[in-house]
């Protein structure tokens, strides 16, 4: 409701009243220096990673990592698995590669900082992961607020369910991969005509069936892929990872989203502090940020062929800037000087006019992607 109102204000009133959104970077002099513990464990093979850092001032760029902490994962039968600090990424702690968490087993995280403060999470069980039943899409039109145009594309949906009605709280993340081609293919770069790109947005998508009579998630919108991007030009693939969360973790992400991913209207909730499941065992009132996420995971991939979208491509999406420069007569010196780093067409019908572009991204796809075919790719 609240986001809808904001959308209403921006679109409708914006059209009439010139609503305006501008970047705003206030100087915030207050700063809370807090411990941040960010880790997760699942039934998928490790190594599992725990990042330990400190919160940093609003007007700064990078966190300070916490080195030399003593980090352990302890299971419900008391077995301890020590995490070692990554030599090249300080503050990042990893489990041994032969440790894999098991479904139905409870785990907790223990962190002892260099100051000898001990932080622990509660023991949480790895829930049984549910299979993703289906991933599918439908053609939809969306209005893009920033570009102020209508965009046609694929709205991707997901179905899943738990016959036992035990899961209830879900989270998803996805990883997109697509094949793309450059507008000017050249024999010299023939292996660089088609490439692959991928994108993985940060953050989780969450959903619940808590208000439903059955633990079923149907037609859950995951993402919208616009036909104005190169993603759907040749072939597109999406891999969705599904997490079975505890109710507590779900609430945590829900609050986190409401504080960090909405905003702008007076109908948004007042932002508040959000703490996860890590506590200083000697001082329960010490605020600790972050979450130790214990969840069951499953994943599913689908491919989307270009055929559904052919009619919507007029210009090679993503390469609109690729244009030729012209040179009136064939100047061998010039041709020579361009060889190797420009794409040249010599038009013999007009007595050797040279059409060329120096923008290598227009003829060499490895400039913006990779020509290594991913191992999951199906042609």
């Amino acid at each position, binding site marked *: 409701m609240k986001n809808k109102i904001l959308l209403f204000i921006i679109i409708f009133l914006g059209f009439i009243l010139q609503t305006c959104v501008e970047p705003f970077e206030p100087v*915030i002099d207050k700063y809370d220096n807090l411990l941040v513990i960010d880790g997760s464990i699942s039934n998928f093979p490790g190594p599992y990673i725990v990042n330990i850092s400190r919160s940093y001032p609003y007007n700064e760029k990078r966190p300070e990592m916490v080195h030399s902490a003593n980090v352990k994962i302890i299971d419900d039968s008391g077995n301890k698995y020590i995490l070692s600090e990554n030599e090249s990424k300080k503050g990042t702690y990893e489990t041994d590669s032969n440790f894999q968490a098991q479904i139905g087993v409870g785990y907790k995280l223990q962190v002892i900082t260099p100051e000898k403060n001990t932080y622990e999470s509660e023991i949480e069980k790895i829930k049984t992961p549910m299979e993703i039943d289906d991933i599918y899409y439908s053609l939809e039109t969306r209005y893009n607020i920033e570009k102020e145009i*209508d965009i046609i594309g694929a709205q991707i949906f997901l179905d899943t369910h738990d016959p036992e009605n035990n899961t209830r709280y879900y989270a998803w993340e996805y990883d997109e991969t697509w094949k793309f081609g450059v507008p000017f293919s050249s024999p010299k770069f023939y292996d660089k005509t088609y490439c692959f790109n991928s994108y993985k947005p940060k953050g989780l998508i969450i959903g619940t069936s808590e208000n439903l009579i059955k633990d079923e998630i149907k037609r859950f919108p995951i993402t919208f892929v616009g036909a104005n991007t190169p993603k759907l030009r040749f072939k597109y693939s999406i891999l969705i990872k599904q997490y079975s969360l505890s109710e507590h973790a779900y609430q945590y992400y829900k609050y986190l989203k409401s504080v960090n991913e909405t905003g702008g209207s007076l109908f948004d909730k007042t932002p508040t502090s959000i703490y996860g499941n890590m506590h200083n065992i000697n001082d329960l009132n010490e605020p600790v940020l972050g979450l130790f996420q214990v969840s069951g995971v499953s994943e599913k991939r689908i491919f989307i062929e270009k055929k559904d979208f052919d009619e919507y491509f007029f210009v090679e999406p993503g390469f609109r800037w690729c244009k030729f420069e012209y040179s009136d007569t064939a100047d061998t010196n010039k041709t020579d000087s361009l060889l190797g780093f420009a794409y040249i067409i010599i038009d013999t019908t007009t007595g050797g006019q040279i059409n060329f572009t120096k923008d290598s991204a227009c003829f060499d796809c490895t400039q913006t992607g990779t020509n290594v075919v991913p191992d999951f790719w199906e042609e």
Partner: protein
Amino acid sequence: MKKDYTCSIVFILLITLLIQLKTNAQNNSGIIYENYDSLSYLKFIDTVESQTKFKFFYIEDWIDTIIISQKKSPDSLKKILSNSFQNSKFQFYIDWDNNVIITNNYIINDILSEYFKNRQSQTDKDEEVIGTYAFIESADDKKNGKHNGEIIIGNPVNRYKNTEAIISGTITELETGQPIIGGVIYIKELGLGTISDINGYYVISLPRGKHTILFKYVGRRDKTENVLVNDNGNLDIELEEEIYQLRDVVITAEKEHNVEGLQLGLNKLEIKNIKQIPSSLGEVDVVKTAILLPGVQTVGEGASGFNVRGGSTDQNLILLDESPIFNTSHMFGFFSVFNPDVIKDFKLYKSGVPAKYGGRISSVFDVAVKNGNKKEFGGNGGISPFTGRLTLEGPILNNKASFIVSGRRTYSDWILKRIEKANLYNSSAKFYDVNAKFNYDFDNKNSISASIYHSKDFFQLNSDTTYNYQNINSTVSYKHFFSKKIYGVFSGIYSRYAYHIDHESNPYEAFNLNYDIEYKEFKSVFAYFPNINHTVNFGFNLIKYELNPGNMTPIGDKSLIGEKELDSENSIENAIFINDEIKISNKLSIDAGFRFSSFFALGPGEIYDYNNNTPRTTAYRLDTLIYDKNKIIKTYGGPEFRFSTRLKTSPTSSIKASYNRMRQYLHMLSNTTAISPTDIWKASDAYIPPQVGDQYAFGVFKNFLSNTVETSVEVYYKSIKDIIGYKGGSDFLLNENIETILLSGLGKAYGVEIMIKKKTGRLNGWISYTYSSSQNKFDSKYLEERINDGEFYPSDYDKPHDLTIVSNLRYSRRFSFSNNFTYSTGRPVTYPVAKYIVQEKELLHYTLRNEYRIPNYLRWDLSFNIEGNLKSQKLAHSSWAFSVYNVTGRKNVYSVYFVSNAKGNVNGYKLSIFARPIFTITYNFKF
């Protein structure tokens, strides 16, 4: 009598002249200082007329031979004239208005006093006297029971009783028969006065005898009536509109009221004045106008509701013809629910709230609907960029019964359809509202009125989810005069607010959700006027609340939504109240009021017993108590004292003080900055005690330039117990354990409000400055039940500095120009105190609430009003209003927010809603 026949014509003319001619007062003592002995009579008259207030009426032929004889100087005019006329057949008569009437061979008796003297002394002049006023009666005077321009009240037999006589009556508008509230009734000689009440009714007790009573009301022509009071009686007055002031902005009540009245913290605005003020979207808006008054704040443009003296939005009792309105806005706050065409005026009580009002802590915003015109049919309407309006009114029985019906509807849905944007293809946002009112005066003693209001909003974005919400309000009142001294108004009041959400975009999760609150009230208010020094109001009310906090039902076969229904909540609130406005002396008056309210939360219901030594969460429930239907679950109540006093320090200045306590049993739960249509109302129950507020206020009032400029300084301090707060991130809708997310805290607010108003003249308006502070505190043993470490922190609507300048320049009868300037401190906002990274995503950490402020707010609006031409023979009278909102195009910040995007970076944004000047044209017509 025949011999006087010609004379009578002269006199009628003279009387007419007397009324019309008014001269500037210079000397009206009747004492002539210069010596005019032996002057010709005509010269004498010229001189006296030019130097004093006296006016002479005579026929030249009669008196050109008279020579003035003045024996000493100074001497009284009366003496001089009687000396001069001593040996002539001429007589003179000096009336109450300093008119000197010369008659030939004939005595005008001062019937006001002489008549009875004569009767008593059994002189034989009776016949002549009666003859005298018999022939000067004009047809018009006769109709009004006047003699010689004088109204005789009561049977002359009772003329010499020792007690004071009680005069009562109703002051109405001449053109429409609408009662005038707050009209002044004033007897200058006695220094006595009173004010007509909410029904236009007044009562004043006077010594028997001759009086000159002045009736006045802003925007209406003063009316002076000479009365001869023999006994108790009725005097109804109609005041005529002062046409040349039509376009004036007249801010508060009547001229005298500011200094004279007992009220502190009262603002009153009439619709015609509200219409002057530049509007934001071409729509005249009483709520947006109220926000321009000192002590009234809003969290942002287009936010619904308002905050009075540091109180939350739900602490305002918003009444439309006595019926409470639960949602005051259309389209999330861009428009208010009050249709300007049927609104008569509003009164806003910020302190010193009369005892008859209760149930909310911060203010009473009392909006009155017009009565239909009792005399003739008429209508008006208009078109603004968003809405079309039409109102019809007229008599049903001439002078007895009338109706008014009005409707307003947006055509924004039509605009939305024109916007070719994908997300708006199946979008809609529209509203309408309808008012109807009926009045019937059976006789002098009984009258009835019925007022109905209905509003509906519909909102849909991209055929996804539809929201609609509606208000229904109605009031039926019966007024009965038990005697001249006491009357009662008995009202049945109904109000309902409901919303409905339909979500069908995903058939598997299709549902609809309903919420409603129903309010039924019976109220009796009596006004009793025992004598001149007391005005007593008393009565009682009984309110029944039925709240349905929500139910959710699946739609269609595929829907997996589970049916969910929260128990309805029933409760009763009642109160008895009395207040007495006591005049202790001419200088000192007090209004002492007392209200006792009580509240009963009724079953059926399940009440959980929580462990007192733990935070209140579902995990710590000890026991469940089940209450049957209508069993009392919890009782609250207590006395509420209301007290105000006024001390006049001079004829044009006074000081006032007030104290009031208010109890609030119904609360709106809203954890957002502004009211959202889906916020819910919650009655006090076993867990939620009533909010109790105390306010102390003090004010100094001074008028200048014969009361045309009013100045005031008011200070107040307010403390509130048991205000409601929320644990972070909580949801209210369909929450079965709402008590586990509510917090109880303290509120305090204080401020100074300075106002300078010029109410009449070609240039009028006001300047107000407010300094205020509003803070809340939520403390607890438990960390999760504390906000800001349990310390006081600024409330969302704490805006310390607020300057408003509203002015209106009347260029001519047809053209006027209005200007509105507002500056205020930015509202408090919560900024993140740190960033941190979880799952490679930059996130924000917030702790202390409202520590920062959004940039200061500054806006300047202009409007230009053109009245149609002034030809009287026209089908309709039309007017145009051109408004520019935010002339400078300043991008006032509506909100500041921070978003962590999909790339994992945090960005800050500021949103301005009216980021450019907004031009609107509104066309209005009247027929």
